[in-house]
Structure formats: structure tokens, C-alpha cells
């Protein structure tokens, strides 16, 4: 399983595009893989023949896991030139291929090469082409008892502490882990209490802090909180994408202490501007000019003013990102995608408009690449598009903040001269990671966004 983007630790084989025995070209897609919110095709790293598919469709495996075994063309050639004769390449392939790692197959291959006298130099060590480096030998080998227990109890062995020789995970380690899980599952559910307390009195004191960090994210069914389906209920299986979203949201809510703030923005002039230029813009570009590029423009310029909002928490330090890559939340019927506009500060309003339209279209078509969804440093969310007036978004972890733009509504407001006027008003809502950010800087940032949005009007903003 290749590393498909930063902080991606595992991938799900959605669909195999090849079958054992198939000849594959280099870079030919061999599988569709689902990682964080995208479908990606895995290109074949070498040309050759597929010997085996080692991970079934629907399985989720860690990065670095061998997912397929390929006999390279060179090896096939060498195997074919072995004494068995040219008519027997297939058999020779079949015999050498199942060798677990290079050793056995390599011996055959290089022996064949030596007798044929046509060896490509250095080809001996590649008897089986493994798509990813094999897992670490020490940490990746488990006794039969350990594997069985892990499978029977759904234990993720990477979470088990090994006490055996060289840190080996022993059967007793797994048994102890299962026992501990069982004990913690049957303990009073501290988390279930917390929301109730918070709801009862808004500034609730810290709930008795249960150690939640060890809890697996979005666990299948939290113990002590049984969900039963009755007759007529519809049960929807959690697919990998839904699971990813759930895990990501839980992780963000667990790890980043969210604070929230909102400001009201008068976008009357922006609305007028858009109404004025949109017909002509659409004629030129075949594409409507939306509000999003203006929102993004206001955000990136304000981020330059307050770069701390364009940062990430890293435990003992904070990383302030140089690039301004804006993640945009795109809702589809089934799920949520968050593609990224790279270096959004370098794009014009028209450029941003095109970038947004492109990403939205590809997100809805399920055609986003891994690159499209990685590298974001700040997220904007156009919740107003669904008519939302107010929202409290969850931070796109590990970013520091997320800003939502709410519905623009005509509202009677009191102007500075105490006159009452009908204006186009929009709320902007910011959720922030309070480990990194405090209220003051966020208020200043929001003020900066507000100031920019309110300044956009007919004749004073360049679209290009």
C-alpha cells in the first residue's frame, strides 16, 4: 500500500483493476484505493505479470503492506530461459513466483540467467516485485496465537505493547490488552455523561476527565450505549468513506479544543458588484461568478496579515505554514470532500472562481486525486449555499481554524446615522483550535475578513 498523501496511514482496496495472471504495463492502474475522502488509482511500479493479489477488495491495510505480487518481465525472461526450455515460461513463472521474498525466486532467476549468459546486471535481487517495502521484520511478525487472538477480538496489534524478546508482542500481551479493553468498556461511560452535563449548564465545569486519547476513534458501537434496530428501521453499513469522515471528525473534536466566534458582515456592495459583473463574466467564461472567490480572496489576504491562523499544532511546537492552501468543503449527496486550492494567494478572483468550480465538479464526480485533497492549511465552508444562517463547523484537523460563510439575507439594520436600511447581511463563523489561537487574534482576523468583504463593491475590485 503506497503512501497516498501526507498523514495517510492506511488505505482500503476498493476495487482491483487486474487479476492474477494479467500482464501489466508500468504505470498502468492496478487498483482503486480509498484513503481519506478520495478514490485513487494505484499505478503499477513495474511492468510484469500479476502473480497474486494479496489483499481482498474492501480490506483496509496499513501503508507499507504488500498488496500484490508481480513477476517482472526480466524475471519472467530469466525463468523462461532456464533449462526447461522456451516453451515453459508460464510453468517456470508459477514455480518461482510464490517464493515469499527474493531469496528462493532470486536463486532460480539468477541461476537461469547464469546458464543463459544474458543476465541484466543486478537483476537477481528482484525475484518478486513488492509494491511497497515489506513491513519491518521485528514489528511485523507475530506468532500464530497472536494473529488468531487479534483476528478473533478485532485487536489492532499496532496498539499493543510488546513485552517479549526485542519488544515482541506475546500471546499474553494480547490477552492482557483484550482484558483491559473489556474492563474499560464495562467501566461507567464517562463520555456519555459529559455532553449531558454540558447541555444542562452552558459553562459546565470540566467533566471528570476520562482518558479518551486511547479510545479508538469512531468505535463500531460504544459499549454501554447500545443501538438497537427495530422492525422497519433501515440499517446502513458504514462504508470506508463514511468511516473516514467519522474518524476525522472524532479526532478533531477529541484533540482540538474548539472555540467559536461569529461576526456580521454587510455585503450589500459585494452583492451589487456580483450582480453587475456576472452576466458579462458568464458570457466570457461560460461559468457563473460565485461568491466563493471573493470569500477566499478576503481570507487569504487576512491570513497574510495574521499568519498564526494558517498554522498547525505539533505537540511541543506550532508550525506556521508558509503556503496558503485553502481547503474548501464540498458537499456531495453521499459524503463530504475537502479539496484544496494550492497557493490560493497567487490566484485572482477569476482564477479562484475557476479553481473552485473545477474542484467542486471533480468532487461530485468522485474524480479527486490524492494531491487534490492534501496540503490544506485553512478551510472555508460556504454553508450559506444550503441556506444556513449560523453554523459551528468542526476544524479540519490538523489545521488551526475553519471559517464558514453563512447565507446572505436582506436584513433591516440601523446605520451609523441612526437610519434604518435594508442591507445584505452575512454571518461569518469561525471555529478555532484554542491550543493555538486565542479570542483576540481571531477577532482581529475576522475583522480583517469583514473589512475586506465590506470593501468589495462595483468598480473597486479587479477580477483578474
Amino acid at each position: 500500500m503506497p503512501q497516498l498523501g501526507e498523514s495517510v496511514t492506511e488505505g482500503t482496496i476498493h476495487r482491483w483493476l487486474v487479476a492474477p495472471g494479467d500482464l501489466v504495463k508500468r504505470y498502468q492502474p492496478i487498483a482503486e484505493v480509498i484513503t481519506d475522502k478520495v478514490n485513487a488509482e494505484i499505478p503499477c511500479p513495474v511492468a510484469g505479470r500479476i502473480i497474486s493479489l494479496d489483499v481482498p477488495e474492501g480490506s483496509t491495510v496499513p501503508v507499507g503492506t504488500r498488496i500484490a505480487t508481480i513477476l517482472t518481465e526480466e524475471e519472467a525472461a530469466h525463468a523462461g530461459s532456464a533449462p526447461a526450455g522456451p516453451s515453459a515460461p508460464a510453468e517456470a513463472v508459477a514455480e518461482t513466483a510464490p517464493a515469499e521474498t527474493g531469496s528462493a525466486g532470486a536463486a532460480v532467476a539468477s541461476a537461469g540467467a547464469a546458464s543463459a549468459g544474458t543476465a541484466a546486471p543486478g537483476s537477481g535481487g528482484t525475484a518478486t516485485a513488492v509494491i511497497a517495502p515489506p513491513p519491518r521484520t521485528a514489528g511485523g511478525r507475530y506468532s500464530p496465537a497472536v494473529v488468531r487472538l487479534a483476528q478473533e477480538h478485532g485487536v489492532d496489534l499496532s496498539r499493543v505493547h510488546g513485552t517479549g524478546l526485542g519488544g515482541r508482542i506475546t500471546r499474553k500481551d494480547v490477552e492482557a490488552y483484550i482484558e483491559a479493553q473489556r474492563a474499560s468498556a464495562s467501566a461507567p461511560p464517562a463520555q456519555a455523561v459529559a455532553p449531558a452535563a454540558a447541555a444542562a449548564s452552558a459553562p459546565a465545569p470540566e467533566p471528570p476527565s476520562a482518558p479518551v486519547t486511547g479510545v479508538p476513534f469512531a468505535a463500531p458501537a460504544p459499549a454501554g450505549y447500545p443501538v438497537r434496530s427495530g422492525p422497519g428501521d433501515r440499517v446502513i453499513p458504514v462504508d470506508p468513506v463514511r468511516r473516514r469522515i467519522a474518524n476525522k471528525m472524532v479526532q478533531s473534536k477529541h484533540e482540538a479544543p474548539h472555540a467559536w466566534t461569529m461576526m456580521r458582515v454587510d455585503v450589500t456592495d459585494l452583492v451589487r458588484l456580483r450582480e453587475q459583473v456576472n452576466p458579462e463574466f458568464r458570457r466570457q467564461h461560460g461559468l457563473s461568478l460565485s461568491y466563493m472567490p471573493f470569500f477566499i480572496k478576503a481570507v487569504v489576504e487576512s491570513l497574510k496579515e495574521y499568519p498564526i491562523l494558517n498554522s498547525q499544532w505539533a505537540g511541543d511546537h506550532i508550525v506556521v505554514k508558509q503556503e496558503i492552501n485553502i481547503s474548501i468543503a464540498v458537499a456531495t449527496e453521499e459524503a463530504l470532500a475537502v479539496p484544496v486550492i494550492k497557493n490560493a494567494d497567487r490566484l485572482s478572483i477569476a482564477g479562484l472562481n475557476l479553481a473552485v468550480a473545477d474542484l467542486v465538479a471533480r468532487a461530485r464526480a468522485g474524480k479527486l486525486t490524492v494531491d487534490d485533497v492534501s496540503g490544506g492549511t485553512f478551510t472555508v465552508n460556504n454553508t450559506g449555499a444550503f441556506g444556513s444562517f449560523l453554523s459551528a463547523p468542526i476544524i479540519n484537523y490538523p489545521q488551526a481554524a475553519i471559517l464558514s460563510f453563512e447565507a446572505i439575507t436582506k436584513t433591516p439594520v440601523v446605520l451609523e446615522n441612526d437610519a434604518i436600511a435594508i442591507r445584505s447581511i452575512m454571518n461569518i463563523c469561525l471555529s478555532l483550535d484554542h491550543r493555538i489561537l486565542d479570542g483576540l487574534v481571531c477577532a482581529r482576523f475576522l475583522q480583517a475578513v469583514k473589512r475586506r468583504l465590506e470593501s468589495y463593491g462595483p468598480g473597486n475590485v479587479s477580477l483578474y
Partner: protein
Amino acid sequence: MAVMNLVEAIRETLRAEMRRDPDVWIVGEDVGKKGGVFGATLGLYDEFGPERVQDSPLAESAIGGVGIGAALYGTKPVCEIQFADFIFPAMNQIVSEAAKMRYRSNGAWSVPMVIRAPFGGGVHGGLYHSQSVEQYFTNTAGLKVVVPATPYDAKGLLTAAIRDPDPVLFFEHKGLYRAVKGEVPEEDYVIPIGRAEVKRDGTDITVISYGKTLHFCLQAADLLEKEGYSALVLDLRTLLPLDKEEIVAAARKTGKVLIVHEASKTHGIGAEVAAIIAEECLFDLDAPIQRLCGPDVPAMPYADPMEKFYMLSTEKCLAAMRQLAQF
């Protein structure tokens, strides 16, 4: 209840069975007036007379052959081979005749014979008085092979062997004859052949042994306990047929198995036990199955340091058990 050593338990069992059943009799070298070189038949000549406790010529083939003939005639001979090392002249009688009699006669005939033989090293016996011969017989279907490790087991198993309708080889480790003592009930009891016994329960590792090395393992288990590891020690007691159920249950319990015997390693009992475990409970195993056995050299050395090198010991068992526990 009387406390006896191993050889006393065997002698009293012979006496009890001869009193109980007039068909039981003894044949062997120096078993009569002398009472055997280890004293296993001491006093039996005086009690039962020369017809039931017979001295044989120095010919093990004759002891085996006479035993088979007498058994076929309807008596229950208990043959003594003075040292197990000398059993090989009787190999043909034991393997080709005694073991196959029931099979070849389609069940019409059987050989209710016991052959007792002291075996094992560590007593400065040198090449001809130290061998562990049990593995020559354990791949011969038709035989039963028994090795007691305690006086209590010796009585119950020898009683079972004498009453068994088929040939039983009863190997007694000469290093245990007077070294191990235990309570032996005076009343009649039988320990079924083919049953292993957990001599010590434990949770971290499983040690499987028999004979003298079983005691090394038990002592090592006590020492290992002080280091925080708990060892289960299983006494096979019968080598043929092996008690598969107990072996697999003991292996399952901890998932880490060490097999210990004085007989040589290659093609040994340990290999068979390991194979059973691998076949029956691979998915309970948490470590490679280990064997600690006598070395594959032709014979027990006579020189004291060399004999110590050859022989297993509590220390050697402890080291192997510790290593497995830590794995």
C-alpha cells in the same frame, strides 16, 4: 502410608502382583538369589521360590524369547534386562515377535509380557550402562512403552503393565532408583497406560518431560517461579501410546512449549510431541516449539566432566525454560 524410593516401589509391586496372581513370574540375569543388581527383586526368590524367580543365562535374546513363549503358554512373565543397553540382542524377539503377535494371529494370540530395564546415565556407567533406549521402541506399533518418574507412578503403572494383555516395555531410570522418594499406598491401584499427568500447573510456559529429566524440570520450575515465571510441567509417563489430549491441552494453555529428555534429540520423543502440537494447535502457539535433549553423539562419555557435559541438569533446564519464558 509408606514412603518408598523408586526401586522399593517396584519391588513391592512385583511382590503384590505375584501374591495376587500365581501366573506372574520373573526371569532375568541375577534376579534370583542376588535379587538383581539394583535390588529390584530382593527377597522375592525367598518368598516365591526358584520356579517363579528364575535366573537366566547371560543371553537377552533368550530372556525375550523365553518370555514370549511363556506368555503365549498362558503365564505372565516379568522379564528383567539388567541394563537397557543390553536389550538389543532381544530386539528381534521384541520387535518382530512380541509386538506383532496379536496382529499376525488376527487376535487369537497375545503376549502379556513385561520387560523391565534400568536405563539412563549420570551414574558413571560409561558407554554400556547409560543409554536411553526407549526411542528404538517407540516407533514399533504393538508395543507399549512406559517410563515412571515417581514411586507412586511406578507402582500404578507396573501394576497396569503386568495386567496388560500385550507386551509392555517398562523403563526405569537408574538415576532415580534411590534418588526419588514418595508415599506409596499399600492398597492395590492402577494408573492407566497412555495417560500423561500435569505434575505442576503453570501459565507462562509448558515443559513436557519424563523420567529423570522431569525432576530437573520440576526443580527448575521452582527456581523460575522466583524469577516471576510460572511453568506447567507435564509428565508423559507413557511414551507409546502418547497422551495426545493432555499434550495438546498443556501446549494450548501457555502457547510456549519446551520438550526435555535425556535421549538423543534427532528422531526423538520430542520430535513426535512437537509434531502432535504443530498438527493440533498451531494457532495457539506463541513461540517456536523448543527441545532440550541429549546430544547426538554415539555414547555417554565415561569421564566425569564429559558425562556432566552430556547429561541434562536443573541448570540447563532452567536456562532453556527462562529463555522460552522471556521470548
